[in-house]
Structures are given as C-alpha cells and as structure tokens.
C-alpha cells in the first residue's frame, strides 16, 4: 500500500498497482480499506471515494492542523492515521458480502444502435451478444464520469469493443454501453463514446434520494434481458 498526496487537500491510498490481473481481490481490498477509513473517522477528513485500485481521502488541511496540533507535516500526521486505520485484516477474516443488484435491460434494436457493431467486432450474432452480456456476472469497480455512472468489470472478453471514434453528443438516461473491456450504464443525458447495446428502465441516479446512486462500488450486478412491454411497465 502507498499513500500519496493529491494536491494539498487530498491523499490517495493505493492498495494495489494493478487491477486487471486480479479484479476481485483488488476490489475486496479497496472496499475493505474504504470501510476501515470510514469507521476510523479521522479528524479533518471530509469524505472518501473508492476507485479501481485506490481510495481517495479528501480533507480540510485547516481542520487536520487543528486536530493534530501541528501546522507543519499535516500530511505526515494524516498518513500515519491512515496507515494505522488500514492494517490488513488476518487471512480468512470475515468480510461483508457485496450486494447483488439485478438490472433489467431491453436489448431491442431501437435502444441498441451499436449492437450490430459489437456483434460484427466479436464475429457472433446479435442474439449471442445479448446472451453473453446478460449471462455474465459483473462488479462495480467505481462510480464516476457523471453522477451514478457505474464502471463495471466482468465483461466477457469476446464482447470487448473499442469506443466509438465519434462520441455521441447526447445519450439517453438508462443506456447500457460497452467501452473497451468495460460495460456501464449512462444515468443522465450526457455525451459519451461507448457502444450502446440496450437500455434499462431503472433510474440510476436520483438526487432526491440518499444515497442518490442505485449502484455502489463493490456491488455485484447481473443484467436480465426484458421485452419492450416489461420495459414500459417498469418505467412507470
């Protein structure tokens, strides 16, 4: 583990150098570090945000200085507290099981303008793309890009498709896409370059709720293929 400054008001706690070589293990470690830091409630820390291999610790240096009683070496003090809070747990120690969330997706052509492109790239039929995409198990590595956007690992290798060379200016909320080796869901009307293969009627981001995002880092996700009628009824 290394702890490095991200400017003067944040530190990044990097638990591993790589992600792809061991996604599950890396995600477990990131989440464990995230939880340990949250329960440590280190004074001056404003919030934490997990990413693929790291947890960002955002702080107010003024509050850290007050808590530590020192005006110099603010980050040394913080790094020591972070280090103490994130001692690796013993092997076999209990970890809380991740949540599993099922996302209904309608893969009808009108919602899937790039389904044929993905099929062509994988040299399989569009039906096989849908089958592969909805049969696989995924895990949310982190939320970002726009509020509630889940970056998910676990896409079958065959479905990996390069991003579009011309990103779309506007993608509708709920659009399910493939970008390189990842799959994700656009929560809000936004620009984007991923290949769109379906749409979910679920709302991925709702600022009137707390937490505002449907999916959280660490969640296990499965896609269930649905028909147009079910899409409409779930959308109500």
């Amino acid at each position, binding site marked *: 583990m290394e702890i*490095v*400054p*991200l*400017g*003067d*008001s*944040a530190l*990044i706690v*990097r638990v591993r150098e*790589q*992600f792809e070589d061991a996604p599950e293990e890396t995600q477990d470690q990131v989440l464990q570090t*995230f939880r340990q830091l949250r329960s440590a409630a280190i004074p001056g820390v*404003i*919030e*934490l*945000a*997990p*990413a*693929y*291999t*790291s947890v*960002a610790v*955002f702080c107010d*240096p*003024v509050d850290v*200085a007050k808590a530590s009683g020192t*005006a*110099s*070496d*603010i*980050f040394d003090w913080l790094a020591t507290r972070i280090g103490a809070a994130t001692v690796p747990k013993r092997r076999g120690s209990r970890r809380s099981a991740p949540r599993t969330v099922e996302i209904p997706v309608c893969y009808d052509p009108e919602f899937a303008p790039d389904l044929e492109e993905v099929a062509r790239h994988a040299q399989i039929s569009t039906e096989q793309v849908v089958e592969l995409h909805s049969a696989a198990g995924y895990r949310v590595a*982190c*939320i*970002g*890009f*726009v*509020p*509630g*956007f889940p*970056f998910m690992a676990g896409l079958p290798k065959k479905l990996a498709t390069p991003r579009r060379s011309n990103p779309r200016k506007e993608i509708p909320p709920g659009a399910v896409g493939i970008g390189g080796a990842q799959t994700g869901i656009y929560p*809000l009307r*936004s620009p984007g370059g991923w290949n769109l293969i379906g749409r979910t009627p679920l709302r991925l*981001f709702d*600022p*009137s709720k*707390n*937490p*505002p*995002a449907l999916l*959280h*880092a660490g969640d296990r996700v499965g896609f269930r293929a649905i028909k147009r009628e079910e899409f409409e009824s779930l959308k109500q």
Partner: protein
Amino acid sequence: MTAIIQRAGFLTSVQDLARTSFREFGVSLSGALYPFAMRVANLLVGNHESEAGLEITLGGLQLHFQDERIVAWCGGEFDVLIGAAPLPAGHTALVRSGEELKFGRAQIGCRAWLAVSGGVDVPIVLGSRSTDLRANFGGFDGRALRDGDVISLGEWPGSSAFAKATADKPTTAKVISSWTAPHDWVSPAKPNPILRFVRGMDWTRFDAATLQRLPSEPFTVSPDSDRMGVRLTGPELARADNVDLISEAVAPGTVQVPPSGQPILLLGDCQTIGGYPKIAHVITVDLGIAAQLRAGDRVRFSEVSLGDAHRLLLQRERALERFRIGLSLRSP
C-alpha cells in the same frame, strides 16, 4: 422575500461552498469556484459563511430587489452599480426595495460572487444549495439563471440594524461602507497571473524537458474552458513513459495532461475520477486566481512545496478568523 433576475447575463448560478460527501457516487463538488471569496462575501453581509449566493460569469447580471438587503461581492474587476452608485468589491451596501444592482462586463478576470443578507433560498439537495450544471440538479431548478427568474431570499434578522452598524451614514451613494476586506481576498484577478503548484503523483512520468517547461514557459487559456476546467495551450507536455494509467480521483486544482500534451486545470465542476496523468496540482489558495482565467489570458506556473501550500492556507485561515472577529465587533 424575492428578487427578480431582470438579466441573467452570460452565466449566473446559485452556488454555496460545494456539495461534499457524495463523491463516492460520482457527484461533483459544484459550488463557488473560489469558495473563499463566497465565504468572505457572506461574512461581509452578516451571513453564515456557507449561505448560498450567486456566481456571476463575465457579467451582465441585473437584479431587482423587492426588500431591503445588505449586499457584498468579491471577484474579478467588474463595474457594479446599485442604482447609479458604484459598489466596489469587498464593500457592503444597503439595497432598498425597488433598487437595482447591476454587474457590468468583467475588465480583468471573469467571475464574481455576490452575497445577499439572508442568502439565496433554494432547496438543499444532497446537503448543498449549489447548482450542479452538468447533472442538472440543485440550485435554482438545476440550471443557470435566466432573464425573468424570481429567486427567493432567506430571512435575515438584522432588518436595518446590521445595515446601520455596517454602512456609513446612509445617504445615496454613502450607503456603501468605506471599510473593506483585504484587497487580495476580494479581488483575486490579475493580468498574466502566476499559479503556484505542488507536484502531481505522475510528475516523474514526464520527460526532463517537460518538467523544465512547466515552470518556465507561459500557457494560454483556450476558449473551450468552463467550470469543469481551464484548458491551456502552450508547449507540449510529453510523457517519458507510455504506461496506461488506471483511473483514480481528481480534484479542483489538478493539472492533468491528455494525450494531446495540452494540460487541463480542473475546477469545481470536474469529474470525480479521471485517467489522465496528473503532472501538478494548483494549491488551494491560488484557486481564486484559477477561477478568474478566461480565454486568451496568459498564465505561468511556479512550484512550491506541500509544506508551503499548507502554511499559506493556514495563514489565510488565521487572517480570516481575525477578520471574522473584527466584523463581529462592528455588528450590533
């Protein structure tokens, strides 16, 4: 009570000190791009420093008041008028019912933060009144203000008591206080400014020539800059390696370098994570200068240590504490 946005200008939005605690869900900070200026403006009008105010970009705001309020603003060089009386940055003034406050075009810099006693009263969404202009929530209907909008103002206890205590002998233009906050707090915009930075974690991924160029050569602000980031053009910042980086957190002040080699200085509306190498971070006390950069401005970078960045921040905070105490002695 309410105030009427007669003209919204180029881009005016409701902002407070930012929406923290939701970055794990990808929610950007939003907020005043220079929160310190919003704090000072709020303190000047007798508000708690976290009240919401208006962020004005490039000017053009015209605001019609329907009751009596104390106002103050901090930011770039703008001509601001209450009726016909000029209101310089960092001074407080009493605006009476029926009076208008007008922001002219920015002469230097591009943003100003206006505080009104009682604050701008919009619903709190995810802990903040700030407008998230990218995700369209918070603030006033999740969007920038438009001509004809009517904004609610919060209640303030002072009626004219605080006004009488703070504004010198009210007669026409003299409703404006003669005392003010320190000049570099209220007016952080400078022509051809220098931004101080600490090294980013990917500093060593850049080649030796690049590491010399960053602190020595000027960069020009590109027109496609916005509240997400200031795009800079200048000498190419070239990588020494070509390792694909794994996305991780970024923050306002982060200077990231996309494959074009032209850096982007991130501001308050930036994404929460990014995958470009981080060559540097502008220090928090200089975010006020960063927030004033506009197309065509030339800017230079100068390196400081992390210790210096913290020392400067703590100094500024102590000075603000003294200022707060000074203000409380003026209040009734």
